[in-house]
């Protein structure tokens, strides 16, 4: 060590101070506040200071857990996130394998396109997909119409529940597969050629090499990509809010995050919204445990 140890503590404190102030004030304290608000009857009168706060204890949670609507939204969120995660991983990994076999020019083109999709802001991506699938002026309906599917002219993709979810899922997979592609491609490239050669010398078939040699090496990376995708897709907000206009017809496309936002800021039930936030945080922190384990496995 180059530096005197005794003075390290004080210097470290100084260096850590700015980050500590920001993180305590704007991350730790709000988390504490989220829990506190979820224990109160916190509506517009309380928020504006016109009415006193009433401590409810776990009443907001009881209300929430006995609301069939909440369970419906929770189930929807889990299934929707699962579809997006599986789709993203399949597309990203398949394209990583493809890119590994392709020659330089096609591979570069693929990476440039993926980089473009990755870089597109969520808002812009949502609108472009919405426009492509627009009822009256969308290219997709026009193309389907000219292919003979006359019923598709004037078809609304966002009116029906599952087609609206499908459209949002397609947009999410489009903008999130590049992360998996880059991660998995880097992983495949990092496998030493000797390992593959040794497997071939031992008489392993291409399929056996893929399942018994390559996959185990890539598993930790795949795990990280999976958990990262779960975290992103579980708390999706912008795409649902923008593409289904705030949660779809009669709230048919609500996911937890949008549900909490609507309860709090449209319904002015901040306490209930905060309770949904707490439930969401707890669910995601459970996933965090898995992530930490995966990180440990990599090293």
């Amino acid at each position, binding site marked *: 060590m*180059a*530096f005197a140890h005794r003075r*390290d*503590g004080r210097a*470290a404190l100084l*260096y*850590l101070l*700015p*980050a500590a102030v*920001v*993180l305590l*004030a704007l*991350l730790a304290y*709000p*988390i504490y*506040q989220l829990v506190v*608000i979820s224990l109160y009857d916190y509506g517009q009168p309380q*928020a504006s200071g016109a009415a006193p706060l009433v401590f409810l204890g776990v009443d907001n949670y009881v209300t929430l857990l006995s609301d069939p609507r909440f369970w419906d939204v929770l189930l929807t969120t889990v299934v929707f996130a699962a579809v997006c995660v599986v789709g993203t991983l399949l597309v990203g990994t398949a*394209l990583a394998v*493809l*890119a590994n076999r*392709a020659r330089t020019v*096609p591979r570069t083109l*693929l990476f*440039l*396109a*993926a*980089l*473009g*999709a990755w*870089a597109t*802001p*969520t*808002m*812009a991506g949502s*609108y*472009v997909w919405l*426009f492509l699938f627009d009822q*009256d*002026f969308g*290219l997709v309906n*026009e193309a389907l119409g000219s292919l003979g599917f006359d019923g598709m002219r004037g078809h609304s993709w966002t009116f029906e529940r599952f087609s609206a979810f499908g459209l949002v899922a397609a947009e999410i997979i489009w903008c999130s597969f590049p992360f998996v592609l*880059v*991660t998995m491609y*880097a992983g495949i490239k990092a496998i030493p050629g000797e390992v593959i050669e040794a497997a071939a010398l031992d008489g392993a078939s291409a399929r056996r090499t893929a399942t018994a040699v390559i996959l185990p090496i890539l598993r930790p990376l795949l795990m990280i990509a999976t958990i990262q995708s779960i975290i992103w897709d579980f*708390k999706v907000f*912008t795409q649902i*809010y923008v593409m289904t206009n705030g949660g779809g017809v009669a709230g048919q496309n609500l996911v937890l*995050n949008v549900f*909490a*936002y609507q309860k*709090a800021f449209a319904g002015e039930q*901040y306490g209930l919204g*905060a309770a*949904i*936030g707490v439930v969401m945080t707890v669910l995601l922190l459970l*996933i*965090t445990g898995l*992530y*930490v384990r995966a990180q440990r496995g990599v090293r």
Partner: protein
Amino acid sequence: MRRGQLVVDVACVVIAAVVAFPLYWMVLSALKPAGEVQSANPRPWTGAPTLDSFRRVLDVENFGLYFVNSLVVALLVVALSLVVSFLSAVALTRFRFRGRTVLVVMLLVAQMVPVEALTIPLFFLMRSFGDVVPAIGLNQLGALVVVHLAFSLPFAIWMLRGFVATVPDELAEAAALDGASRFRFTWQVLFPLVAPGLVAASVVSFIHAWNDFLFAKTFLISGTDNRTLPLGLLVFFKPEEQDWGAIMAGSTLMTLPVLAFFLIVQRHLVSGMAGAVKG
């Protein structure tokens, strides 16, 4: 074998075209004259490109101002986040003190907090801040800056930690022998050496701040002068009479800076990501 190679290459190019198509369509629709965009027979090209849609969003809808607002927020977040996270990364890798491991684990956990769930407490926090320091209260860009700074720090520190750790101790010893103070070593030797990490961290913070829609929508509730781009686009999107040409022009304006940023730093980005994964 050669036939197989051709199939792979062709598949690669076709998929690249499909993936890039929405972007092409966005730019194309932004350049089409209004009559061609709002047409029941959209064509994948245009004979008469025009900047009318861009003029419409920039002049009539004040997008120029929203663009500057978004840029100010994102750049401030990047600059502040780089300095603050670099300092913390140095402390966490090059100094020995009690509780260091605990802090590192907490950073990892902090990355997993669904910040979207914090809109409610942060809304009230910003309202209180506004009474003391108006610049970071509700309806102010400062509120977005501090919030995104906080959200970007855990990942940025985590990523930079890996980079700072790769700088050998001998370098610090050599610098000390040459009479450089710890402060000088940190800023004149260490800081430039971890440039790839700084680039990767800044791309991530920039994109988070630039893309943010939820917090802009929550904090900027009245007045239009401080709107950021996503909020401007949302207001522009009217359920019944969409001006798709203008929406695509706005989306294009929003995408261009990120795309440029990405293309410039892509090499560093991939190595930076790899560093973080290994970290």
